[in-house]
C-alpha cells in the first residue's frame, strides 16, 4: 500500500518534469520556426531551458505572500491537469482521461496565476487578466461544443476511450470524420495558447505583457513553465480528440509537435485582434463550426 503510494508519487514527479521538458522543447523549436518565417537565425533550441534556469537563479521581487501562493497554485493546477492526459497510452496515474476534469482543472492554474498577478497591484496585469478571462469565455464555449460532439458520437468523455475508437488506420481519425469540429478545435487551441491573432492578453505594445508585467526571477520562471505545460495539455487534447491519439510515446509527441507548429505558423503571419473581436470571432466561427458538427453527429446517430 505505502510502497504503491510512493511509486505513484515518483511516477507523478517524473511525469511532471517530463511534461515541462517537452513543453520547453516545443517552445524552443517554435522560436526557431518563427525565426525561419522572419528570415532570422533565431535562438538555439535549448535557449528555453537556459532561460528557465536563469530565471530561477536571479533575484526576484514579490509584493505579498499571496503573489507567491498564486504563482505556485498556477503551475500546480496545470500539472495536475496534465496528469489526466494520456501520453500515447501512458498515464502516470490510472484514470480514464476525463476531458471535463482537464477542462475544469486548467482554470485553477489560470485562477492561481490571476490571483498572483492581482496581488502585485499593477493595473496593467489586471487588464491583461480581464482580457484573458474574456477570451476564455470565447474559446471554452466552442471547445465545450466540440466535446459535446464527441459525446453525441461516442457516448464518452474519456480521452482513453475516444483515442481507442480511432485506432485502425488514418481514415478512422476524427479529423476526417469530424472535419468541422477539427477546424473549430484548431481555432480554439490557437486562443488557448494565446498565440496571434488571440494574444490580446499579453499584447506587449498595449499592456506591457499583461499578466507578466510584474513577474521577475523565479516568478517569471514559474510562468514560463506554466506556459510549457499548457502547450503540452492543449496540443495533446487536439491529438487525442482528432488525430487518433498515439500507440507509442514518440508518434504522439510528433503529432503534438505538428499541431503546435501549425499554431506557431499562424502566429507568425497574423495580426492581433481586439479582445471583443476575438471573442466574437471565436463564438461565431469556432462555435458555429463546432455546432454544425454537433448537429451532424446528432443527426447521424
Amino acid at each position, binding site marked *: 500500500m505505502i510502497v504503491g503510494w510512493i511509486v505513484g508519487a515518483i511516477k507523478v514527479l517524473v511525469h511532471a518534469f517530463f511534461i515541462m521538458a517537452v513543453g520547453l522543447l516545443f517552445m524552443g523549436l517554435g522560436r526557431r520556426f518563427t525565426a525561419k518565417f522572419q528570415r532570422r537565425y533565431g535562438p538555439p533550441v535549448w535557449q528555453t531551458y537556459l532561460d528557465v534556469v536563469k530565471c530561477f537563479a536571479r533575484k526576484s521581487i*514579490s509584493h505579498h505572500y499571496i503573489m507567491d501562493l498564486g504563482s505556485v497554485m498556477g503551475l500546480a493546477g496545470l500539472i495536475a491537469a496534465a496528469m489526466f492526459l494520456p501520453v500515447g497510452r501512458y498515464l502516470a*496515474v490510472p484514470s480514464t482521461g476525463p476531458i471535463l476534469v482537464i477542462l*475544469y482543472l486548467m482554470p485553477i492554474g489560470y485562477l492561481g496565476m490571476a490571483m498572483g498577478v492581482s496581488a502585485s497591484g499593477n493595473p496593467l496585469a489586471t*487588464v491583461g487578466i480581464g482580457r484573458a478571462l*474574456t477570451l*476564455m*469565455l470565447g474559446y471554452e464555449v466552442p471547445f465545450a461544443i466540440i466535446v459535446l460532439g464527441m*459525446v453525441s458520437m461516442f457516448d464518452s468523455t474519456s480521452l482513453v476511450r475516444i483515442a481507442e475508437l480511432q485506432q485502425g488506420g488514418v481514415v478512422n481519425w476524427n479529423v476526417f470524420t469530424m472535419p468541422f469540429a477539427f477546424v473549430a478545435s484548431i481555432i480554439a487551441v490557437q486562443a488557448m495558447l494565446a498565440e496571434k491573432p488571440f494574444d490580446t492578453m499579453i499584447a506587449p505594445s498595449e499592456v506591457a505583457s499583461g499578466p507578466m508585467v510584474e513577474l521577475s526571477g523565479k516568478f517569471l520562471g514559474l510562468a514560463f513553465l506554466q506556459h510549457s505545460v499548457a502547450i503540452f495539455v492543449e496540443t495533446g487534447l487536439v491529438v487525442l480528440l482528432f488525430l487518433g491519439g498515439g500507440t507509442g510515446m514518440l508518434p504522439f509527441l510528433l503529432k503534438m509537435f505538428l499541431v503546435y507548429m501549425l499554431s506557431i505558423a499562424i502566429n507568425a503571419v497574423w495580426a492581433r485582434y481586439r479582445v471583443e473581436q476575438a471573442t466574437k470571432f471565436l463564438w461565431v466561427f469556432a462555435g458555429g463550426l463546432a455546432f454544425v458538427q454537433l448537429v451532424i453527429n446528432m443527426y447521424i446517430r
Partner: protein
Amino acid sequence: MSMMHTFAIPFAAGVFSLLFLGRWKRLQWGLFFIVSLIQLYGVYTLFGAGGAIQEIPLSLNLPGLENVSFQFRMSGLGYLFFAGSSVLTFLVALYSLTYNDRTHATGIAPLWTILLGAQAGIFFAGDWLSFLFSWELMGWTSYFIIAHGKRRPREAALYYYILSLIGTSTLLAGVFIAISGSGSFVIGDGLSYLAGLWGRHTGLVTLVALLFSIAFFSKSAVFPFYMWPAKAHAEAPDDFSSFLSGVMIKYGVFGMIALVLPVFRMGYTGPAVHGVPLFLGVLGWFGVITAVLGTLYAIPEDDMKRLMAYSTVSHLGFITAALSMNSALGIAAALFHTINHMLFKGGIFLSMGSVKHRTGERMMHRLGGMAYRMPLSLFTFLVCIIAAAGIPPMSGFASKWMVYQAIFDRGLLIMAIPAFFASTGSFLYLYRGLHTIYLGQLSPRFSEVKEAPVTMSLAMLFTMLLVMFTGFFPGLVLMPINGVVAELGFEPLTLNLFMIQGVTTTVNVTLIGILFMGAVFIVGFLYLIGKRRELVGPLDTYTAGEDPKDWGLTEERYHYGMNFYEPLEAVTGPFLRGISFDALFQKIGLETGKLSDTVKRWFNTPQLGTLVLVIVVVVVIFVVWR
C-alpha cells in the same frame, strides 16, 4: 425531539422574543443562536427516522372540515434539506452573534427565529394545510426581515413580496385542485390523484404542474423571476443575505422535487423528448436560460452583494436544469449542487459580510487590498469561489460534473451549451470579486482594518473547512443523497466516498484533490530552490519609468476596479437590454395603476360612487337570488 418540535420550538421562541425581548437585542440574538443549536440537535435525533408520521389534530369543526389535522411526515428528501439548512443556519447564527454589535444590530432576530420553524414546517409537511401555512409564514417573515425598517430595502422587499404573493396564489390554486379532486389533505394522496389523471385530463395535470412551477420558480428566482435576488439579497442585512442565498432560495428546489417531479414519474403518458416529459424539458431550458442570464448580469455588476445574488440565480438555473431531467442522476446532481451551493455561497456572503462589517463599503471599486488586512476572509472567499466556479478540488466540481452527466444521460446535448457558457462566465465575475475586493491596491482609508471578530471568523473557518471536506470526499454528501434518490424510487447511482460513476466516464474526485496537492508540493519545491525573493511595497510596480506620484496616483486611484469587462459588456449589453423582464413588469405595474386609477375615479363624486355601489349591490343580490 420530534418533527413537531423542530417547528414549534422556533415558532414559540420567536414569538416570545418578539413580544418580550424587544429591548434587549443581544438576548434576541442569543436566543436565535440557541434555537439554531436546537435545530442542529433535531438533525441529530431525527437521523434515521425515515417514514415517521406525526399527527396533530386541530379542534376545528367547521362544516365540511371535520377532523382536520396538521401532519408531519419524515422523508429522506425533507431530512436532507433540513440537515443542510440547519448546518448553514447554525454557522450563520454563530456569525450573527458578533455581527450584530452596537453599530450593526438589526431587529430581525425574532422573525428569523420564527422563519427557522417555518422552514422545518416546509420540509416536514405531510399535508397541504401545514405546507401552505409554513410557506406563508416563511413568505411574510422574510418580507419583514428583508425590509428591516429601512427605505431602500423596503422597496426591494416589496418587489420580493409581490413575486412571493404571485407564487403563493398559484400554489394555492394548484393545491385547491389537488384537494378537491382527491378529497384528502394529505400531500401524497393529492399527488397520486394528479398522476392518475394522465391520459384522461392531461391539461388539468399540466395546469397544476404549471401553477406549482410558477410558485417554486418565483421563490427560486428561475427565469422569468430572476430579478428579485439582486434587489432583495443586496438590501437585506448582510448576515441574512447568506441565509437568503444559501437556504431560502432552495425552498423552491425542494418544492419542485417533492411536489412537481413525482407527478411526471407515475404513469406519465404525454409527449416526451429523449425520455424527458415535454413540460420538464421546457423547464430545463428555463433553467439554462436562467444560468446564462444570471452570469451575464453578474459580469458588469459593481455592487458585490448584487453580483453574488446574480451568481446565485445562475446556480439555481443549473439546479433547475439538472432536476428537470427527472432521472436518478439528475435529481442527485440537483440535490448535490443544492447542498454545495448552500455551503459555498453561504461562505461567500459571510466573507463579503465581514468586509462590509469592517469597512461599510458595498461597491467593489471603492474597496481593494482587503486580503492584506483580512487573510481569513480572503481564504474563505477563495475556497468558496473555487467551489462556485466548479473547479476541482473544491466541492462545486463534482456537482457541476454531475449536472453535465445528467444532461448527457438524456442526450439533450444542445442544452449543455448554455450551461457551459454560464459555467465559464462564472470565472469572470468570481475573479472580478476576488480582485476588486481582496487584491490589488489597499486604500489608505482601510490600512487599519482588522480581521473579522472571533465568532464571525469561526463561522467562516467552519464553512471553508466544510467546502474543502465535501470537495475532497464528495461521498460524504452524495451517499446520503443516493439514499434519498433510492427512496424516490430510482435505481441508486454507483458511487463511493471518493468516486462517482457517470454515463460517459467515471471520475475519482479524491484522486484529483490528491494530485493537485502533490502538484503543489512539486511546484512549492521548485519555488523554494529558486533564489529568495524580496518584498516590495504595493506602489513599487512597473510603470514604464514614470513615478505614479507625478501623475497624482494614490493607492486608491491606482486600483483597477471600474468597467472591468468593458469590451465584453459592449458585446452582451444590447442583448441584455433587449430582454429585460424588469421593464415588462414595470409596464404591467403601470397598466394596473392606470386601471385602478380609473376605478378610483368612479368614487370621486358621491353621486357616481353611490350609483356604482347600487349597481354592484343589485347585481350581487340578483346573482345570489338566482
